[in-house]
């Protein structure tokens, strides 16, 4: 709890109306897309790095946690104030400060919504590839904190590949600049990469310098329907094996397809598994690659391969694809959403293994996602009120992680660890590796004020579930 002096001081820093201690506001800043609720003690809306710095310095002197927050759309609880404290919402810091078309860079504030930034870039025929499913509402600050990926990662990589430099308020309140405005730069440690994906535990990003690409000349979108999921998985491996790198290569299994088509009548089939594939580049090569992909899909067992004919159709297909995660709740009331990654050649083995886990535990497990880079969103569907299902779901997650690691994969490709995966990081990381990370954390944040309770398994899992609504 914050005393009145602290409250007054917070209000003084950000200005009247930009700090709230009202219950209604606290309720609305108590969650993210994990749908767990922990109310903060205050929410503040700073406008500048200096204001953030003052808040963080105060957190150190007064001993309250600081929880940086973008749009609150993460899937692992990264912006949820699990131990209370002050939510620092960056929603007001939303300017695109500069688009440098000559050097292909841009400077943005953290609260810029990704899609709006990409719309801006379109005017210059420029391209910022990261495209998490939440791109229409998530912020670039949040993308950086979680190292967001997305469908285009198969060809273009993830957020970390497009961040050249950052302005960061450290957990002790100092404002530093990391990185460069240039492609190259090796002066000192790579603090930029340390901050990216650190889930707000090592500082608050207050400004970012991003790397841009020219907009690809042309894009082709294909939809391939497979009666058997394993054939779809095999097609993914075959496309990569044929040395074709599509700009997206998305998989939706039959459950995902069914739920998404219930959400929106957009021309998705009602049955079977789907690959949504895009190739981009110059017009001639795009045509050629689309043709090759079509053949590979048919050879792998696709019953239908369809090329989208107009922009509207493409838009609708993506709308359906983006809706899958939330639309799955039509199948069961609760889900555990994991985003494991395996080497691409192992996608068929992963999909097959998950099917088996679902069968053995008698659970519905939906798989969809960025098959092209091996990143599969595994959604274990269950009903929290059904004790058997709830227990089986926990077990399924453990088995999926074991399988993933056995296939030389990682337990999270783009969602981060947050609170939901903290208990599992020991499965992937050695005690020494975790210890090295903790030493970095302690060195930068000696008082532990910055987004506590994330990444490292400090809170017992049972307690957490208890508090979860």
């Amino acid at each position: 709890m914050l005393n009145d002096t602290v409250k007054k001081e917070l209000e003084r820093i950000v200005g009247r109306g930009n700090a709230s201690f009202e219950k209604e506001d606290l309720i609305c800043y108590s969650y993210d897309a994990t749908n767990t609720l922990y109310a903060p003690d205050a929410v503040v809306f700073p406008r500048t790095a200096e204001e953030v710095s003052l808040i963080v310095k105060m957190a150190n002197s007064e001993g309250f946690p600081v929880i940086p927050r973008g749009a609150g759309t993460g899937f692992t609880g990264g912006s949820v104030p699990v131990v209370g404290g002050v939510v620092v919402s960056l929603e007001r810091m939303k300017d695109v400060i500069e688009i440098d078309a000559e050097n292909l860079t841009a400077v943005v504030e953290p609260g810029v919504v990704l899609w709006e930034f990409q719309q801006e870039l379109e005017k210059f025929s420029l391209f910022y590839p990261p495209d998490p499913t939440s791109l229409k509402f998530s912020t670039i600050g949040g993308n950086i904190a979680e190292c967001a990926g997305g469908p285009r990662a198969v060809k273009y990589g993830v957020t970390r590949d497009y961040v050249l430099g950052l302005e960061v308020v450290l957990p002790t309140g100092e404002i530093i600049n990391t990185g460069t405005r240039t492609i190259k730069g090796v002066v000192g440690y790579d603090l930029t990469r340390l901050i990216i994906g650190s889930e707000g535990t090592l500082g608050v990003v207050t400004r970012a310098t991003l790397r841009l690409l020219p907009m690809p000349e042309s894009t082709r979108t294909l939809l391939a329907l497979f009666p058997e999921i394993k054939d779809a998985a095999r097609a993914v491996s075959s496309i990569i094996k044929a040395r074709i790198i599509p700009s997206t290569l998305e998989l939706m299994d039959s459950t995902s397809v069914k739920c998404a088509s219930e959400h929106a009548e957009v021309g998705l089939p009602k049955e079977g598994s789907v690959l949504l594939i895009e190739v981009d580049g110059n017009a001639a090569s795009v045509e050629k690659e689309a043709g090759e992909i079509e053949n590979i899909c048919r050879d792998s067992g696709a019953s239908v391969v369809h090329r989208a004919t107009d922009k509207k159709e493409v838009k609708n297909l993506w709308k359906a694809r983006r809706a899958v995660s939330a639309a799955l709740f039509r199948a069961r009331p609760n889900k555990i959403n994991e985003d494991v990654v395996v080497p691409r050649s192992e996608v068929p083995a992963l999909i097959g293994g998950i099917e088996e886990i679902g069968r053995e535990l008698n659970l519905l497990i939906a798989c969809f996602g960025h098959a092209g880079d091996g990143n599969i969103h595994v959604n274990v569907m269950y009903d929290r009120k059904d004790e058997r299902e709830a227990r089986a779901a926990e077990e399924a997650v453990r088995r999926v992680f074991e399988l993933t690691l056995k296939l030389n994969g990682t337990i999270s490709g783009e969602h981060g660890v947050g609170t939901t995966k903290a208990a599992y990081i020991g499965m992937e990381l050695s005690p020494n590796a975790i210890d090295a990370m903790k030493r970095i954390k302690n060195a930068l944040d000696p008082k532990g004020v910055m987004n506590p309770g994330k990444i490292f398994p400090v809170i017992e899992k049972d307690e957490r579930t208890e508090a979860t609504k």
Partner: protein
Amino acid sequence: MKEPKLLSELKAETEKCVRCGTCRSICPTFRVIGRETASARGKLSLIRAYREGEIGLTENYLRHIKECTLCGGCRDACPSGVDTVEVFQAARADAVAREGLPFAASFVLKNMLDYTTLSARALKFVTRFKGLVFKDSATEHGLLSRFSLPLIGNNRLVPELADTFFLDLPEVKRLAANPGTGRAGGAGAERAGKKTARVAFYAGCGVNFLMPNVGVASIKAVQKTDSEVVVPPGQVCCGMPAFYMGDVETARALAFKNLEAFEAVEADYIATSCATCSHGLKNVFRKLLSSEDPALEKRVDAFCSRVRDITELLAGELRFEGGGKGRDRQVVTYHDPCHLNRNQGIRSQPRELLKGTADLEFREMKFPCSCCGLGGGLSLFNYDLSMEIAERKAESIRATGADVVATACPGCIVQLRDALHRYGVRAKVAHVVELL
């Protein structure tokens, strides 16, 4: 048919929200306010907290649930399929039921009785209407609350009250045919390969009090297709303004009156040039007049299934064929009223009508479907916010370079005129039917 649900019956609907945040990408109110409390996800969280007794009917809670145009954008975008409009609607009705006057007053009366901020022009208007504010007169209640007329801020463009109301125009009165008489065509009659139809015209408050010319243009367009028009005399406000503010009883009483008035004229279609009215008559009536009595159910179904928006009827069943009027060529763009687009799926019809008119050049604006900011009583409750929402719309219109922006809802027309005036955009605003 189901009655409007109470908030207590919408627990499951409210809890379908998984807080993914998709609603943040589409909400016009959130876009302006920029805080979670303005998003549908936030509102649903507050409604849930209220339901569970975590918060009461606090001033903040009431303010947040009113900061919404009920445009339905979030409902359409929601991957979990939460009927947000129904939940928000029920939350408002719940507040009215519990708070009674104070809540309604914060919407209507408090602002309306504040004469001190009124300009001379508005004062003239209010003088004319003063009595009505106090009377339990549902029609005027609809007009005042929907268009928030006497509420004057600086630089606000107020719609003028028509000298003669639509329903009082002599040429309209002549169309107030007696039931079953003077019937020109009837459903089965064919003329020159076209079906001629008997169309009953429903004016609504906007057309009746403010824009009789829209009504007259609608009638002329229908007559041009060789169909017969009747204007039933006993019609009253559609009740949607009352419904949206949570006053379900008033809305229901009005629905009954309209049902009876239109049954009397035995028309093939019931047409209106107001998007809100057509949504109300076509869809909401089914809820408002839901009943255990099969005879009544049948009457309601017969009524609702005949309702058409004027653009829907002209482009559809009546196969209206436009043609230039020898005017100068004008560039026209189109604003989608939420109640037409989101609630009735009517998007292509008004565009077809405009494109089929020889002297119009159609240019699509950016974000044609984003809400103008008027709806859900927002203009009345928070005029500044409503105008801030309209700013993006005004800028989209400016960017098209259009001479005229067409739409199909008197509410949107009032709002767009005010917004274009405020943001210095020169385009005129007209109903689609006025341009045909």
